[in-house]
């Protein structure tokens, strides 16, 4: 379970997360929607310790992410994250990209790591591209590789930071299909997204992020169908 308790995060003088609390249980899919710059991505980065927090607490399976004593490297094996700009390692082939962490971080042997990588790449539909370099792949394919790379670590939780925003429209579908598949397999997912239809279809809960806070949260049908707060309503009207 991920517990976010009253988290505040600032960049210098500017506070971008102003007291957010959220609990994500095992197997849940939570989508976070909201306008640009509302702090959604920042919150996601705080969950696996890529960003620090000024106030509050984030607990992942009981471990405080930002405590001094926490070994972030160990914690990050449990939390997979996929970024908007997939950040493929350009000097490694697709297979090597996915194999790298299981081998070097989890200490698997070459054969074990290769098997894991091949399985995950098959999972996301990239079996034919194993010995290709990322530069030869489309954005959608690279993003799916990034998902496979994160999955290869067998994480308990997966975070997705606007993973389709940088893709050409026709490539968005294949990535969403992969994510939909993961959700049906029972992966715990927190996704920041602009894909409203997808969020409505796949999520157990949808949170509307506005001015650094969770303005409204609830069942997808409730949020999209009859939003309670005016800010939510106006946001939805502008994007749908």
């Amino acid at each position: 379970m991920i517990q976010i308790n009253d988290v505040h995060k600032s960049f210098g003088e500017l506070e971008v997360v102003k007291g957010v609390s959220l609990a994500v249980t095992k197997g849940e899919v939570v989508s976070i929607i909201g306008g640009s710059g509302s702090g959604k991505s920042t919150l996601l980065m705080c969950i696996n310790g890529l960003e620090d927090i000024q106030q509050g607490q984030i607990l992942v399976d009981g471990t405080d992410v930002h405590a001094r004593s926490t070994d972030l490297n160990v914690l990050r094996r449990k939390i997979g994250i996929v970024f908007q700009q997939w950040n493929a390692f350009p000097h490694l082939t697709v297979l090597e990209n996915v194999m790298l962490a299981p081998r070097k971080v989890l200490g698997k042997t070459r054969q074990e790591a290769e098997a894991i990588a091949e399985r995950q790449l098959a999972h996301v539909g990239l079996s034919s591209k194993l010995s290709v370099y990322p530069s030869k792949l489309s954005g959608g394919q690279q993003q799916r590789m990034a998902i496979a790379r994160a999955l290869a670590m067998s994480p308990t939780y997966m975070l997705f930071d606007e993973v389709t925003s940088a893709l050409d429209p026709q490539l968005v579908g294949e990535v969403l299909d992969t994510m939909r598949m993961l959700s049906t397999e029972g992966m715990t997912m927190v996704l920041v997204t602009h894909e409203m239809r997808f969020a409505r279809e796949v999520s157990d809960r949808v949170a509307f992020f506005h001015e650094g806070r969770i303005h409204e949260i609830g069942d997808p049908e409730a949020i999209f169908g009859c939003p309670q707060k005016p800010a939510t309503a106006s946001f939805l009207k502008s994007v749908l």
Partner: protein
Amino acid sequence: MLHGALVSLEIAALSMVVGTGIAVFLALSKRSSNQLLIGFSNLWIGTARNTPALFQIYMVYFGLGSLGIYIDSASALLIGIAFNNAGYLAETFRGGLEAIPGTQLRAARSLGMKPALAMRLVVLPQMFRIVFHATTNQMVWALLMTSLGVVVGMTDDLAGVTQELNVRTFRTFEYFIVAAAIYYALAKIFTGSARLLSWRLFRY
């Protein structure tokens, strides 16, 4: 003379290996937040790049001698050139590191890699490709710098051997023209192989 060329190559290669290692350390130091490391790195790079290479060799040869450490001319040449290499390469490496988006390191860390591991597996390989051309240039430069050894009394390297022959026979022009041709040939062979190597290595 060909044996002298071999000696020159050895010294150049060794100085590059040492220089590159130190340069990585200096480049990382300069990008760190440790004031002491930044200062040390700046001092090294500043001296190496703002004073003549011969001066640096003098520092090692004469300077260390006065502190009681006896250095023979071959070692002084080697250390001097390595010092120089490290300074120039550090700046090149620093530029290379700056060209790699910080998101690469972030992605590697997100997979649970410790900082040193992430550097070794993800960042440094990419830097290697970016700085390859400049580094091979520096290697040619190092080879040409070995000729300075003759000023501090080297007789084994190409320039030293040529000078020995010159002093004995006074046929300056002939011997030095041959030496020049050998240096030129070595430089060309090296840059040619470097280009081939980069074509093979950097297929991505």
